[in-house]
């Protein structure tokens, strides 16, 4: 076998594997990417029922209703619009009314968001970035205006490597 044909085989192998990787990435991009929406965006643009997305905002005061068998209903608001949410499962430790959360799931035909994941942060002043940005965009955000307002947010609660990963608490069904 000549040097040239060996090189050709090598290049063909590289091309095949890289094409496979690219194909996988593209197909995954079209299928498994989840967009973030605020309640206002959901109200304004509408999201087709059945499309997975992340809904972020504040848990509306007085909206949490606990049903039987770990079912819970609450509403997520960005003060402009409100989306009702249904969830079954254990909620994160920091889930409470007025807290910023991100829920992942789909809208049903009746406009109720059926969440299968609820995320909240392990810090009493925490606001998910997406929520904070969405609120800022609507001018509803005051710097330092956490719920408790008083205590300084730890400037950098970030921890080495995967500690950061874990700081958000997940709750999945």
């Amino acid at each position: 076998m000549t040097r040239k044909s060996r090189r050709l085989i090598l290049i063909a192998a590289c091309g095949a594997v890289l094409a496979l990787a690219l194909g996988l990435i593209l197909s995954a991009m079209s299928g498994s990417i989840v967009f973030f929406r605020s309640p206002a965006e959901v109200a304004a643009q509408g999201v087709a029922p059945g499309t997975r997305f992340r809904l972020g905002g504040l848990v509306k005061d007085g909206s949490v209703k606990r049903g039987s068998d770990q079912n819970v209903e609450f509403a997520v608001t960005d003060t402009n619009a409100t989306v009702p949410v249904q969830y079954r499962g254990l909620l994160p430790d920091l889930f409470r009314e007025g807290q910023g959360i991100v829920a992942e799931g789909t809208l049903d035909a009746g406009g109720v968001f059926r969440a299968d994941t609820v995320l909240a942060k392990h810090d009493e002043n925490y606001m998910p970035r997406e929520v904070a940005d969405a609120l800022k965009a609507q001018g509803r955000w005051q710097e330092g205006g956490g719920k408790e307002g008083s205590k300084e947010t730890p400037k950098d609660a970030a921890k080495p490597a995967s500690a950061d990963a874990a700081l958000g608490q997940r709750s999945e069904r």
Partner: protein
Amino acid sequence: MIVEIGHYALALALALSLVQAVMPAWAARSGDAALREVAGPAALGTFACILFAFCALTYAHVTSDFSVQNVVENSHTAKPLIYKISGVWGNHEGSMLLWVLILALFGAWVATAKNSVPPVLRTNTLMVQASVTFVFVLFIITTSNPFARVAPAPLEGNDLNPLLQDLGLAIHPPLLYLGYVGFSITFAFAVAALIEGRIDAVWARAVRPWALIAWSFLTLGIAMGSYWAYYELGWGGWWFWDPVENASLMPWIAGTALLHSIVVMEKRDALKVWTVLLAILTFSLSLVGTFIVRSGLLTSVHSFASDPSRGVFILAILALFIGGALSLFAWRAPTLRQGGLFAPISREGALVMNNLFLVAACATVFVGTLYPLLLEMLTGEKISVGPPFFNWTFIPLALPLLVIVPFGQALAWKRGDAAAAAQRLLAAFAVALVVALAAAALAWGGPVMAPVGLGFGAYLIIGSVLEIWSRARGYGQNRTRDLATTWRRAIGLPRSAWGTALAHAGVGVVVLGIAGQGWATEGLATIRPGGQIASGPYVATLDRVGPTKGENFEETTAFLTLRNRAGDSVGTVETGKRFYPSRRMTVTESGLKTVGVSQIYASLGEVLPDGSIGMRLYYKPLVLLIWIGSLIMAAGGGLSLTDRRMRVGAPVKARAKLPPSAVPAE
């Protein structure tokens, strides 16, 4: 006072690393050999200074010196001693200090490894390592000073985030950093070789142990982090595909590829350009990882807002080193002489495929991690790339790689015989098939991929055993049928051969553990004392709910008794909610019961006013194999390091001068 001396030591380290980075270059220009020799002592000095600074910060944490900002923000007098110590690196400033400590440690280590690294290469490597150290120490001093004071000093600190008050997290960061900062030294070696323009088997032999050390630690660090996340976060997942986890996974994948291509270079003098590029890329990915973790730029529920100036600084470091190294590479690479030839079906060919699949897998993780950031910057659209993306892209690339692992081992260097290799692995194929079919039959109607995964795991493990077996039996005329001879030969095989087999078997064990998760079950219920919750083959009865108290927390604990479906007790398990008054935070403490290598995992939900509790019970078959396999992989790396040819700092010629027992234990 000690804090000020620590700060001063850090500044001294900055100066020393500058000396270490500049002097060898100056020496090359002026031809002054004595000047070149400065690099070694300077590396030791830098390490000593940073070590002192690190100890000074530790001292401030242990003595709860609340005049230091860093201690105020992350410590509390009531915190147990172990977490006062681990709190040193449980924050941005301290963890960056640990980062440079490890950079300097590797520099000093190379400086002492006089016999295994040729002198010019060593000096140049120290020079490159010092320039990395210099820039990161500069980063700490200018943007993240851990020694900043506060006046007036508060009486009490804010405490460490309770999630981090855990033994797993005390050891995880040092291990992880030894790994991914450890790859800085292979980067330094690569750049040094490009500067010198000499890249050959000698270089490969000098670099290989360092890559192995870093890789083994990184394997341990990632495994430890994964186990910590598993039991501490209370939802039973062992890998999140979170950007911060991916940040450590990417250098690991690239480092794994590097380990394999270095072997080709050492044995066959081929793949030189590629190996050097991989060494550069591996540490570049570590830098990208640090950027992801430290800048807080990624839109992730897990990233905290942090000082943007830090992000910009790290981005500049990133551009400087990655850009610089790649430019040097582009300039020098064409001048490298091509190495040994090999046929596509050969050990080298298999290792090239290994590298291809690993790099492709790494690229998909890279895209999945950074694409959301890029998209948000360009369009403002926020997206989340979660496990479905990574499972869909990563697994199809990982499976062919698993097929190649034992197969490549069975091929000869230069030109292999695929049919003979397949024949050698016949037993592995057979066992894998039986395992997969048996699992599918026993759990009919279950997930499809789980039995397939078990088959792959069995194939890898048996493949590793067969590799040692057939090497011990010998080939051609040397072939023996005598068991005693086989055994003697197996014992006599190089440690690196055993290390390789062990590491590959470890991969198989991890695959078994992952496959087992296909059968994991989850039970969810609201129960009162006396009530039951079931998951998989187990039923848990809630005995009582009561308060318990820890040093710096109050806990509401649920006590459960576990029984199997036949009604026999298999033990008790406790899970609780811990309230930490200093941070007013509640943390769920999950309860684990280990049965063999499987676990039952209980997690307490809300305690409702009427006395009932929300409870989640997982059954996780074979889950411990994920971490046991990782330990086996790292042990394989460690075993290879004890191979005579790979001992770092082990004298090659000095064996004549020194009795073997006097060989440095490094």
